[in-house]
């Protein structure tokens, strides 16, 4: 196990060009996970190359905007990799405005949809994405949807339900059986 941990740290350090410390945790069930925060957002590209060299795969990418990070003036993205059954999470910090990050799609094909998703939910530009179209949201909807407060009454005012129920009630004027 020590050898595995050492190999991961060395490979990432080699690709990044500086010493990287991965924190390894083991939970009560004996599951080991690795955690590492990279100094710069752009370092995710060589780090991903390192994971690919270790024959790891990308599980998913999570972009998030926590209150704690916002106080520090940053946003975060966590990249969750799988190394033969062990999860390695590499996190990066990006500025709140004008965040840019290199695409990993050419290394891990499944980064494609993850990157397209967080591009439409957050104000993050992915540089070098082969197909940066909207994934889920329609073009008519303003980007960075998760960065705006959208009152529930704005995106769902119930007008459709109201109109349909008016038609239902107009054609069924309480004709149910009355209980004696």
């Amino acid at each position, binding site marked *: 196990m020590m050898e595995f941990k050492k190999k991961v740290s060395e490979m990432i350090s080699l690709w990044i060009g500086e010493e990287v410390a991965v924190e390894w945790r083991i939970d009560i069930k004996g599951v080991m996970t690795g955690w590492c925060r990279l100094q710069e957002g752009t370092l995710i590209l060589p780090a991903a190359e390192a994971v690919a060299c270790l024959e790891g795969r990308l599980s998913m990418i999570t972009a998030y905007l926590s209150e704690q990070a916002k106080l520090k003036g940053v946003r975060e993205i966590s990249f969750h990799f799988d190394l033969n059954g062990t999860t390695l999470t590499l996190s990066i910090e990006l500025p709140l405005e004008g965040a840019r990050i290199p695409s990993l799609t050419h290394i891990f094909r499944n980064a494609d949809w993850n990157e397209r998703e967080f591009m439409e939910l957050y104000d993050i530009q992915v540089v070098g994405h082969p197909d940066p179209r909207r994934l889920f*949201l*329609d073009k*008519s*909807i303003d980007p960075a949807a998760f960065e705006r407060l959208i009152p529930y009454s704005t*995106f*769902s*005012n*119930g*007008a*459709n*339900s109201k109109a*349909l*129920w008016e*038609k*239902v*009630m*107009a*054609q*069924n004027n*309480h*004709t*149910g*059986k*009355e*209980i004696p």
Partner: protein
Amino acid sequence: MEALPENDPIPPVRLYRINAGSCNGCDVELATTASVARFDVERWGCRYSESPADADIVLITGPLTVRVRDKVLRLYGEVSEPKVTVAVGVCPISGGVFRDSYAVVGPIDRYLPVDINVPGCPPHPRALGAGIAKAATLWRERCGYTQPSPELASPGNYDGDAVAPTGLRGKMRFNAAACVGCRMCEHVCAGGAIRFDETDTGLHFTLWHNSCAFCGLCSHYCPTKALSVTDEWQMSHLQEDKYRLVEQGVVSFVPCTDCGSILLPVAPELLRVAYRETSREIERLKTLCPECRQKQSIGGIRR
């Protein structure tokens, strides 16, 4: 799968399927109508077409999302007239559980004329078969075929046998006599299919089957089981009946036997849940309004 007789003068009716943003639940059920012998649409003289230009009947699944609206309308426009349109599942009919979402622009009849609705979430393959058979009959009428297709001559053919499969979640049924008016069903209803209206005479319950997802949550949470899931699957209907497909009931108010103010009657099912057995005193108290009950409970004769 039964082949059409060689001398059948009526050509097969061609079906074209459009997914208008469906979760694919209805599409999976539709797949059975092309791959499982006892549900096969060929039994009703129909077959699936790969091109809208060759189709006679359009089957639409999904709530019609913003993303696919234009594509759906373009494909629909490519189907030549006369055509018959079938809304498959509650989503295209009413929006179902997706109604009022910013990403949904349906129901589809806002954009194109619908002829037949097959509610369900998803509808059982038999219900799909019945809806498709009705659509085929309608299409043949529109085309001027006076002689009915032999497959469709008897409605019993496509209504299927009377026995529903075990565990089938069908139409919901309401028993007003057991309702206590807690409105929990309205609260938990995934599709917004239930509403209560209070009038001077009582509490009016309405369940619109065209928005019901058959999830059974209303029945699960109903403390007195005034709502129950039946195995009735045959719900396909003409568009003109869309808003009439309801389950209704009225819980009439009764006067308090002491002061005369109105109250909802206490259902025997509620007493069974609360006390298991009732006594003469409980029977007497249940006819009183809360205020009189309180007065009598506190200030009444002590035993």
